[in-house]
């Protein structure tokens, strides 16, 4: 087995129109990978970014130890950004996926997000009332299967600071 340490944090989000944002994240990896230590999913706090800055700061820590028996299914981080209004309602702002870097060292990973769009009326209602379409299964976020029928709009981006430590890959002939 080879081990991959992922140490870092979910720094924050940028370029979202909404103000009170929080993020749900989860690590997704293939069947040949096994989580040894650390939380594989989590949820940040709600950060109310101050104007004129459009940056939400979470600094949510990530510390994972994963071992693998093969390279298939290299781990990814799936993020779902939500907004919370003054009434406590939570609406989707964006989905995104970012592949964990495969080289040791510090990496700043930018994960661009998108959100599903509905019809004109649904978009109008989302703008004034809230709500909006969401995907039923999160598998669509990280799946490369057919996505053609899914119409989306660009959202903001989520910034991750990740430190990668790799051990034992070279023993199995892996050159990164």
């Amino acid at each position: 087995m080879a081990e991959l340490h992922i140490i870092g944090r979910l720094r924050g989000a940028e370029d979202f129109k909404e103000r009170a944002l929080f993020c749900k994240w989860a690590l997704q990896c293939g069947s040949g990978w096994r989580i040894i230590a650390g939380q594989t999913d989590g949820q940040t706090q709600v950060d109310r970014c101050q104007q004129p800055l459009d940056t939400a700061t979470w600094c949510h820590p990530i510390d994972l130890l994963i071992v693998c028996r093969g390279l298939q299914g290299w781990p990814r981080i799936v993020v779902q950004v939500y907004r919370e209004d003054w009434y406590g309602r939570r609406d989707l702002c964006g989905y995104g996926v970012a592949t964990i870097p495969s080289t040791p060292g510090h990496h700043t990973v930018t994960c661009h997000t998108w959100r599903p769009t509905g019809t004109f009326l649904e978009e109008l209602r989302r703008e004034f009332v809230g709500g909006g379409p969401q995907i039923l299964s999160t598998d669509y976020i990280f799946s490369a299967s057919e996505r053609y029928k899914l119409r989306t709009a660009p959202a903001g981006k989520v910034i991750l600071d990740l430190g990668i430590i790799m051990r034992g890959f070279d023993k199995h002939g892996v050159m990164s």
Partner: protein
Amino acid sequence: MMAVEPAASSTAYYYTKDDIANFKIRVRLRELSSAELISASPRATVGLLSASKAEASQDKAEEQALQKQQLFSEEVVLTWQQKVVRPNASIDDVASSSKDNRRKKRPERRVFTFTHRDPYCQHLLQLPATTSRRRNRELPHHGGSSVGGDDDEREAPPPDLPRSFTYVIMADLQPRGCEFEEASSVTLCCLRYDTRGELAVTPDFCHAGDHPYRIEGPDGTNFEYTIENASLTRPEKEGSISAFYRPKLTADEWSSDDDDEGGGGLQLTVTGELTRLLNCAVSGDVYLSYAVYVPPGWTASRETECEGVSVVCRTRRGWSGKTPGVYCMPLSLRFFTHSTGNGWPVLLVGAFAVDGDGGEMDVGWATIDLAPPASRGEVSHVPMWSPAPVTPSSALQRTFLTGCRLLPSASYLAPYTARHEISRVSRFGLVTNTTGTLEYRLQTLLRSSLDLPHPGALVSQLPGRSEATKRALAAFRKSRRKLHLITAGIKTKK
């Protein structure tokens, strides 16, 4: 018999919500040598003064090794209410508490236990030492627990009252070869658990940095022991961690699927995303379509999806600029080969726009080499281009009727054609427009059983670059061969 240090009479109380059946206790009992009771052996000190240092250290090491061979040491992990029979227990005692009554000889161990059902623990419960003990004794016990026996179930207390269970760990400290004496048994630890979750431990568990408890046997032999809580809060994970950090295991456990599928050659793994389409010439709904060109000699793994379509993202062109299309299209590709030099897989990407009526129009094309070190995870950009309309009629047709203009040949994109011929060298006659920039983040990993010195060396085998290198090498070999021939001719003439 007395406790030397620290005090073994203090009781510690713990509260737990876990099932007591998961509770484990690790007991380490060790006989102390005389040299361990003081910081340095006087004999060794005298030896250091009188004899040479080498001889003294050798004597000391031999003495310690001899003592270690003769000293008793035992480590045992016990679960809650696990019965360990006294080393020289009678057959009746063994049969009453355990089904294993085959042992009659004294084994090389000293630790044994009394469970809640044993008369010894019942005797402890009946001692009127504390109020709680009296209350436990006076109160009838309630059934429902598998730990208690039939006698306990007959005296079941009301359900709202706790029920206590006792577990005693003892050691037999009699000298070797001597007959058993009742007085040679000493209590190492007494544990009492009630159904409220309270666990009383006398003495307390040994924590990191604590001194072990010391006891003295009937013949003056010194022992030390530790009682540790060996319960695993996360048994699976911690077990896997300990297993993982065994280097032998880490070296062996690698999936054989990779080798089976690839046949032990070179394995190329590409992960990442097609993230955005920047500066798109078309404003509207745009999607990406990708396909992987696999050159001859390479095979894609079964899980690899060599073709795919992204979501349809809305791009806008407003007064503040162009909104890029965000796709975050994840890619996970894996290829195998047994020989390099036939080229590397190439990712072909096409962008298409969809109008309101469902008609499609090509936006641009791009090619991404998947050869290492193509990218190390940083964000990269590749410009997209599309064939420009040559005639005014085609320009009008594209403006009003849209439609896709397919490339006349895939060789404009891929370095090899479908017949595995060398790609076209000249693109003369092809007029194109720059239609945007594709942003991607890909990282490549190589796993090889071939003799490849370094990924950087593989760059020389990239298509395009390899041609010039091959020509230069061929010319060099040709001139060298000529030089050899000329030299041989001169020699024969001589």
